[in-house]
C-alpha cells in the first residue's frame, strides 16, 4: 500500500505539471517555490494557507454584497480587485482570470454577470484548493519517506 519515494516523487512531478498545464498555476507559483529554502521550509505552505483564508473571506463578502438590493458594485469591485491581486501574487492563474472578468461586470453593473462570476470563482477556488492540498500531501509523504523534492 505504501509507495516508495521514487513513485511519490513521480506522482508529485506529474501532478504539479498537470496543474501548470491546465492553467491552475502560472510562473508566479514557481517564483514562490524558488523563494523557499532550508531557512524557510514552509514558505509556500504559509503563503498558500494565507491565500486560502483570504479567498474564503473575500468569497463570503462578495456573496453577501451581491445579495443586497441594490448591489453595491463599487464595494464588490473592491473585493474583486483585492482577490485579483492576491491570486496574482500566488500564481493562481484561473482565479485571477475570473476576477478580471468579474471586475468588468462590476464596471457595467451587470448583476447577472457578477453572480455567474462569483459561482465560477467558488468553483475555481475549490478546485485549486483541493489540488494544492494534494500537492502538499505528496510533498509531506516524500519528506516522511526520507526523500526530497526540488
Amino acid at each position, binding site marked *: 500500500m505504501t509507495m516508495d519515494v521514487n513513485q511519490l516523487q513521480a506522482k508529485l512531478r506529474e501532478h504539479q505539471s498537470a496543474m501548470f498545464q491546465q492553467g491552475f498555476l502560472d510562473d*508566479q507559483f514557481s*517564483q*514562490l517555490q524558488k523563494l523557499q529554502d532550508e531557512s524557510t521550509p514552509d514558505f509556500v505552505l*504559509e*503563503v498558500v494557507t494565507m491565500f486560502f483564508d*483570504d479567498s474564503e473571506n473575500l468569497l463570503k463578502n462578495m456573496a453577501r454584497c451581491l445579495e443586497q438590493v441594490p448591489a453595491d458594485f463599487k464595494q464588490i469591485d473592491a473585493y474583486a480587485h*483585492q482577490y485579483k*491581486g*492576491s491570486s496574482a*501574487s500566488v500564481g493562481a492563474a484561473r482565479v485571477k482570470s475570473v476576477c478580471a472578468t468579474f471586475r468588468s461586470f462590476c464596471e457595467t453593473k451587470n448583476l447577472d454577470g457578477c453572480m455567474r462570476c462569483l459561482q465560477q470563482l467558488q468553483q475555481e477556488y475549490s478546485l485549486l484548493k483541493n489540488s494544492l492540498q494534494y500537492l502538499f500531501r505528496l510533498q509531506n509523504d516524500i519528506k516522511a519517506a526520507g526523500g526530497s523534492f526540488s
Partner: protein
Amino acid sequence: MGMAAETQFHVLAVDDSLIDRMLIERLLKTSSFHVTAVDSGSKALKFLGLVEDGKRNEEPPTIALEANQDVEVNLIITDYCMPEMTGYDLLRKIKESESLKDIPVVIMSSENVPSRINRCLEDGADEFFLKPVQQSDVNRLRPHLMKSKVKDEEDHHQISNKRKETEESHSPDKTRTKMEPPKVVNSS
C-alpha cells in the same frame, strides 16, 4: 555615526495586503536586506519618525530630526493602492520632509496605468514595479541604495568640491530617472 558603518541596508516595505507583505519581505531578505514591513502609510510615517500633518509643523525642527535618527531606513518600497493613504500620498509626504526626502522610494502596483506610473516617477519615485514583484525587480534596488549611501558618507566626510559636483549629477534627478525607460511591462 555607528549606523554609517553598517553594510546591510534597511528597507521599509508598505503594503495593506498580508500576502504581498510576506512576499516582498521574503524577496528582500533573499537579497540580504534588513526588512521592516508595515500595513499602512500612516504606520510607515510613524516608523520614520514623522508625526501626522499639522502637528509636525508645530514642533521645532530638532525634535523631528531626533525622532527618526533612531531608525535608519535606506529605501522605502510601497504599494500604490492602499486605503486612507495611497502610496502616492506617502511618496509626497516623504519628499516634502527635510529629513526624509533623500530616501529612495519605489512604488508597486498591480495595475499598469501609464499616467499613474509617470506621475509617481515625476514626483520623485525612483522606480515603479508592476506586481507581482519579481527577484529581478528587487535586484534593481541596489544601485539606488548605493547612490544614497555614497551621498551620506560624503556629507559626513566633507569631500572636495570636485567629488561633490560628480555626486550632484547623480543625485535624485527627475529628468535622469525619466530618461531611463520606466518598467511598464512585466516580462514574466
